[in-house]
């Protein structure tokens, strides 16, 4: 877990430090904001992990970890297949084409997208 926190901490420190240097060298707002947001991205995640998971000792971080250590730890279910992702993808793609070729495509894509979203949620619940 320390490596994960350090990884995001590096993103955070790099964004803020370079962003600050860049601002005082150039006073150019676009690049400064982008770098600061990079720092914020790292701050949010490393901060969350630091507060919530700092003292967590996971079997995968244990250099002597065995498979018995991880037995019984739920890692979620893995879907055996689902038709909704491809329908949702088609919905998004069609909907975006609607901005170019006419609003009817936007409606068709939107309907497909909403249908797929509902399908995905029901699948997760079931």
């Amino acid at each position, binding site marked *: 877990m320390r490596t994960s926190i350090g990884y995001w901490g590096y993103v955070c420190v790099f964004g803020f430090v370079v962003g600050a240097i860049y601002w005082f060298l150039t006073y150019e707002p676009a690049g400064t904001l982008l770098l600061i947001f990079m720092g914020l991205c790292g701050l949010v995640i490393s901060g969350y992990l630091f507060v919530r998971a700092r003292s967590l000792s996971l079997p995968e971080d244990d250099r002597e970890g065995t498979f018995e250590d991880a037995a019984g730890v739920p890692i979620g279910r893995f879907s055996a*297949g689902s038709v909704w*992702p491809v329908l949702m993808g088609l919905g998004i793609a069609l909907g975006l084409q609607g901005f170019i070729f006419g609003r009817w495509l936007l409606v068709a894509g939107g309907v497909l997208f909403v249908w797929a979203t509902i399908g995905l949620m029901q699948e997760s619940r079931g």
Partner: protein
Amino acid sequence: MSETTLPAAVHEHRTRAARLLDVITTTNHKTIGLLYIWASLVFFLAGGLMAELMRTELATPALNLVSRQTYNELFTIHGTTMIFLFIAPIGLGFGNYLVPLQIGAPDMAFPRLNALSVWLFILGGVTILSSFGASHGAAAVGWTAYAPLSGATGSPGPGMDMWIMGVLLTSIASIMTAVNLMATVFMLRAPGMTMWRMSLFTWNILITSILILVAFPPLAAAVSMLFIDRHFQGHFFDPSHGGSVILYQHLFWFFGHPEVYVMVLPWFGVVTDIIPVFSRKPIFGYAGFVLASLAIAGLSMSVWAHHMFTTGLVDNAFFSIMSFLIAVPTGIKFFNWIGTMWRGKLTFETPMLFCLGFMANFLIGGITGVMLASAPADYDFQDTYFVVAHMHYVLGGGSLFAIFAAFFFWFPKMTGFRLNERLGKAFFWITEIGFNLTFWPLFISGLRGMQRRVAEYPPGIYTTPNQLSTLGAYVMAVGVIVFLVCVVQAFRKKIPAGDDPWGGYTLEWVTTSPPPEHNFEWLPPIRSERPAFDWRHRETGPGTPAEVGVGPPVVST
């Protein structure tokens, strides 16, 4: 969600339609990874065809094959295809396939999100390529789509809009895949697989993911703003209403330069996984390699405006220094590779040959990159063929060669079949010769001042280099045909490869080829960064796995 898995016997007797439906509705990371890889290779063939057309046009100074407009469309879509639809996504494809296997996970963290990503990527690619059929033709503004040329006046017609939507779709797909890969690496490692024992390919995919996460949203924002300018009376990039065209360049290159590393870092990882196997040695300087990758990732976020030196509106000194600095961690990687091969027991199978070709070509690309990073020199090189040659040495000589190294290395694992070594080696040598014949002369035409993105050139000093280059492009086309023959032959002859044809080091080589539905029937204990090697040699010292040259024990976990 249905948890049922059909037994293998039932699978084999299903009809073709049912199997097609299986692929379309798949959420398995291996099938999705293969979809990424095969789709990217199809896009690669399309982009290569455009390149051959352009080289044929440039064989003579005058315009004689395509119109100027068609030429502009060709180089735009060639660049877009190779960058957005081939090199970056095929890296995500290998990541999708290999990361769960290398860390001992049953699947990716979010399987259905993964499926959505691959479909968005494929649909985005289809959108971009089908724009050739649009009423004013495809986008013709270069892969950078600079405003105001890409605005409503400069680029009328739906081709440009389809380019924007295609890029938007592929960038959404990339962001989702990056999130997925990071969650997988952080949350689904097998017990004992600490971060500092992961394969270097997995490490580099993790670092690539953070680059995607930081760099792609600005791109999505930039092209969306472009679309708003074109259709909804926006003025983001319109100076006559207080907008700024330079803002587009900032946003685009804040994506564009990290994108170069999105296209290169996974292949650094591939090469670093392959070279130790064919040197019969552990990697030299594991931790140094990881830290160098992190340094490259950081620096790559702070060099974007070296593409904008000649605008005169950026701090040339800052971006020049940062760009020079990238050479340091990249040099460390060369030390890793050479140190690994040093006194190793080298064998030269096809993947290893491609790795060596990668090192040679990428070095040329890297050194010319340092030349271009010098702002005063860049005023001379900007928009000449020198830049074109440089970036093709980085992405063609570098990434492309490593892609084929990865393909030849992991094809037996992914399909269970063996590729023909002799055809593979022939493919390597034809490509290596053809590649250098194509792109080395472009350095010369560039230094002589030839402008990029122009279909004609004055006869005289540019003619010979261009003819050599065109010849080289045809040689490369022959190489690609050899490659296709090699792949088709492997699927027809179906010579079984065995689970571990190379004597691999990382975890994917302990499972079957191809791996079962959830990757592993069993796992060996993981006690170093070479679990498969340790398991093969377990009798030599029980409980004392070969910890030669592994990462730093003090900073683990």
